C-alpha cells in the first residue's frame, strides 16, 4: 500500500515543470494557469528549515510519547510487544496525518517512519535471541522485510539506503564463511552494486516508479559508490589483511593488477558516463574517485612528496575549473555554467564556514605558533 497520495506527487512535478517552462517562455500565461489549475492539489512542501524543525520535534515527540506510553501501560505484555503496539499506533496516526496535512517528506513523517522502524526492532531482537544462532546477518535478515515494506509503502530514501546496505551486509557475511567466498568477495560486491545500478537506472526511466523516485536515486548513487569502493585496490588489500588477520603491513593480494585497473578505469568510466548522460552525480563521483585513486597510488608508491602532490592536483583542478567556467558561458556538449538560484541554505552554510575560518585564523594569531596553521583549518571549504 502506498502511504502517500501519488496524484499529489505527480501534480507537484507537473506544476514545477509548468512554472519552469513558463519562465523559459515556452508556455503562455494561460497555459500555465490551466496547468496549475488541473494539477491544483500538491503536497505540503515547507521550507527546509521548517522541515528540520519538524524532524527534530517529531523525533523528540516520538521518543517521549513512547516513554509516556510505557509509563502508563508498563511492560504488560513484554517490552517488545508494547513497543510494537506503540509503533502500530503511531503508524495509524502517521497515515492520518499524511492524509490530512498532505505531507510528503516534510520532516515529521520522516522522523516518525524511522521511529516506527525502531519500534519493531525489540521484537526482532527477541526473536533473534530466542533462536540462539550467533550469526548477526540472520538478525539483519529479519530486519530486511520491515525495511522493504517501509520502502515500498513510503519510498523513504534513507530507509531504502538502509535496505541496500543490509543486503550488502548479508551477502558479505555469507561469503566470508568460507575461503573461496572470501577471495571472491570484491567481485561479488561489485556484481551486487552493478545489479542494483542497472535495475535502479532502468526503474528511474519509467513513470510507474515515479513514487519511489528519490529512493531510487539514493540507491543508484550508493551502488555507484560501492562499485568503485569494492574494486579499489586500497580497500581490497587492506580489507583482505583485516579480514584474514594478516596484520600490517598488509600483504599483496591476488589479482592485484586487476584491482589497479579497476581503480584507474572506474573513475574514467564515471566521468565518461557523466558526460554522455549529462549526469552531475556521475561527474561528481568521477572526480571524487579520481581523488581516491590518487590517494591509493600515493599510499603504496610514495613517488612524490605530499606538498608537490597537493600543488599539482590543485593546479590541475583550479586551471581546468577556471577554463571550463570561461568556456561554458555558452552551452557546449549540453553543459553550461549558469548561476543557480541562491537560497538561504547556501548563505547559511557559507556564513558558518567563513566565520569558522576567520575564528580559526584569529585564534592562531593570539600567540599560538603560526606556520602550518593554514593547513589544518581548511578542510571544509567546499560549497556543497
Amino acid at each position, binding site marked *: 500500500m502506498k502511504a502517500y497520495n501519488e496524484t499529489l506527487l505527480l501534480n507537484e512535478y507537473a506544476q514545477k515543470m509548468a512554472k519552469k*517552462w513558463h519562465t523559459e517562455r515556452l508556455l503562455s500565461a494561460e*497555459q500555465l494557469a490551466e496547468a496549475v489549475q488541473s494539477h491544483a492539489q500538491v503536497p505540503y512542501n515547507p*521550507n527546509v*528549515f521548517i522541515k528540520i524543525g519538524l524532524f527534530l520535534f517529531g523525533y523528540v515527540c516520538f521518543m517521549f510519547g513512547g516513554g509516556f506510553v510505557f509509563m502508563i501501560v508498563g511492560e504488560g505484555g513484554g517490552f517488545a510487544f508494547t513497543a510494537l503496539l506503540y509503533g502500530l499506533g503511531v503508524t495509524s496516526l502517521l497515515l492520518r496525518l499524511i492524509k490530512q496535512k498532505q505531507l510528503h517528506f516534510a520532516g515529521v513523517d520522516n522522523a516518525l517512519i524511522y521511529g516506527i522502524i525502531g519500534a519493531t526492532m525489540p521484537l526482532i531482537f527477541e526473536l533473534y535471541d530466542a533462536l540462539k544462532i550467533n550469526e548477526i546477518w540472520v538478525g539483519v535478515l529479519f530486519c530486511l522485510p520491515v525495511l522493504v515494506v517501509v520502502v515500498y509503502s513510503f519510498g523513504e530514501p534513507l530507509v531504502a539506503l538502509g535496505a541496500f546496505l543490509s543486503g550488502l551486509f548479508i551477502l558479505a557475511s555469507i561469503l566470508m564463511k568460507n575461503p573461496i567466498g572470501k577471495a571472491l568477495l570484491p567481485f561479488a560486491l561489485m556484481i551486487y552494486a552493478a545489479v542494483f545500478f542497472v535495475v535502479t537506472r532502468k526503474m528511474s526511466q519509467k513513470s510507474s516508479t515515479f513514487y519511489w523516485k528519490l529512493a531510487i536515486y539514493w540507491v543508484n548513487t550508493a551502488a555507484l559508490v560501492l562499485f568503485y569502493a569494492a574494486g579499489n585496490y586500497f580497500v581490497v588489500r587492506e580489507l583482505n589483511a583485516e579480514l584474514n588477520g594478516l596484520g600490517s603491513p598488509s600483504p599483496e593480494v591476488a589479482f592485484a593488477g586487476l584491482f589497479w585497473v579497476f581503480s584507474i578505469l572506474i573513475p574514467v568510466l564515471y566521468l565518461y558516463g557523466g558526460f554522455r548522460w549529462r549526469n552531475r552525480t556521475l561527474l561528481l563521483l568521477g572526480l571524487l574517485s579520481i581523488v581516491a585513486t590518487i590517494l591509493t597510488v600515493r599510499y603504496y608508491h610514495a613517488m612524490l612528496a605530499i606538498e608537490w602532490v*597537493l*600543488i599539482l592536483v*590543485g593546479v590541475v*583542478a583550479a586551471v581546468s575549473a577556471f577554463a571550463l567556467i570561461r568556456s561554458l558561458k555558452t552551452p557546449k556538449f549540453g553543459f553550461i555554467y549558469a548561476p543557480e538560484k541562491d537560497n538561504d541554505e547556501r548563505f547559511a552554510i557559507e556564513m558558518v564556514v567563513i566565520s569558522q575560518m576567520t575564528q580559526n585564523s*584569529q585564534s592562531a594569531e593570539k600567540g599560538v605558533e603560526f606556520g602550518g596553521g593554514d593547513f589544518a583549518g581548511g578542510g571544509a571549504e567546499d560549497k556543497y
Partner: protein
Amino acid sequence: MSTFVYMNPLSFLLDEWQQRHLLTDEQRVQLETHERTRPVSLYILLRSLLYAGILLFTSGVGVLIYNNIDTIGHTALIALLAVLTAGSFFYVYRTSVPFSRGLIENEAKFSDFALLIACTLFLILEGYVQWRYNVFGTRYGLATVLPAVLFLFCAYRFDQRGVLSMGLTAFASWVGITVAPMEVLSNNDFNDMRLIVTGVLLGVLYIGVGVASERMNVKKHFSFTYLLLGGNVFFISSLAGLFRPEGWAFGFALLIAAGCWLFVNYARRSQSFLFLLMAVVYGYIAFTYLLFEVMNEALWAFFGMFYVAASTGGVIWFFLNFKKLLKVRDEERPPLR
C-alpha cells in the same frame, strides 16, 4: 495502460496535457526536445572544483614553505604575502563597481572571490607579522580590531556578504566573544556573568544593525548575516544567563521572549524561515526550563514525559499551520533588494 509502464514521467505528463488540449502537437514535441537537450548547469560543481583546487594548491605551497623556511627566510615570505595581499586588493579595486545601497551585480566573476582571498591573506599576514616582529606588542585589542574595521569597510564598499561575516566574527573576538556558530557553545566560558552580558549586548547590537539596515534600506541583503550571527549569540548567551543561579532568570526570560517575537516577525516578513526555526527552538528550551523550575519536583517526575510529548506535538502542529497562524503570504520570496 501497458504503454504507461514504459514511459518516463515527462512523456506521461505531456501526453496528459495533450489529451486535455492544453498543448498543441507542435508544442508537445518542442517541450520534449527542449527538456531532453536542456543544458545541465555545472555551476556548483565547477565552483567547488575551483575552490578545492586553490585550497589544495595553497596548502601545498604552505607545506613547501614550512619545510624550507630556513632557506627562504621569514622576511622574504612576509614580503611575498604582503605583495599577494596588496595584489588581490588591487584586483578587487580595479574590477569594482561604484558603491550602492542595494545588491551589486558585478560582471567580473572572480572579484567576489578575490576579495575573500585578499581578506584571508590579510589575516594570515597580520598574524605572521605579529608572531615574527611582535608589531602590536601586547596590544591584542588593536590587532583584532584592525581586521574587523578593514573587513567591515570592504564588505560594504564591495558588497561582499562573506567578508561581512569575517568582519563580524573579527569584531566579536575583539570584544572577547566567539560567534562562529559551531563554537558559540564550546569556545565561550558561560560561567562568567560578564561574558554572558557581553554576548547578549553584542547580539542585540548585531540584531539591531540587521533590522535597521533593512528598515533604512542600506544593504538590505546583509540583514540575514547580521541576524543569523547576532541571533545565535544572543539566544545562547541569554539561555546561559537564564540557567545561572544569580536570580536574574526573569530578565533573561523577558529578553528571550522579545527575541523570539522579533525573529518570528522577521521570518514572516522576509520569508526566511531559518529565523522561525531559531525562535521556536530557543524559545521552547527557555519555556520548558522555566516551567520545570517553577513546578514541584514530585509532580514533574510523572508530568515531565507527558509534557514533552504533548508540547513537541504542539510545536509540530504550529509548524504545520504557521502560514495560517502567522498570516504568511503564500508566495515566492521577494528579491533581496
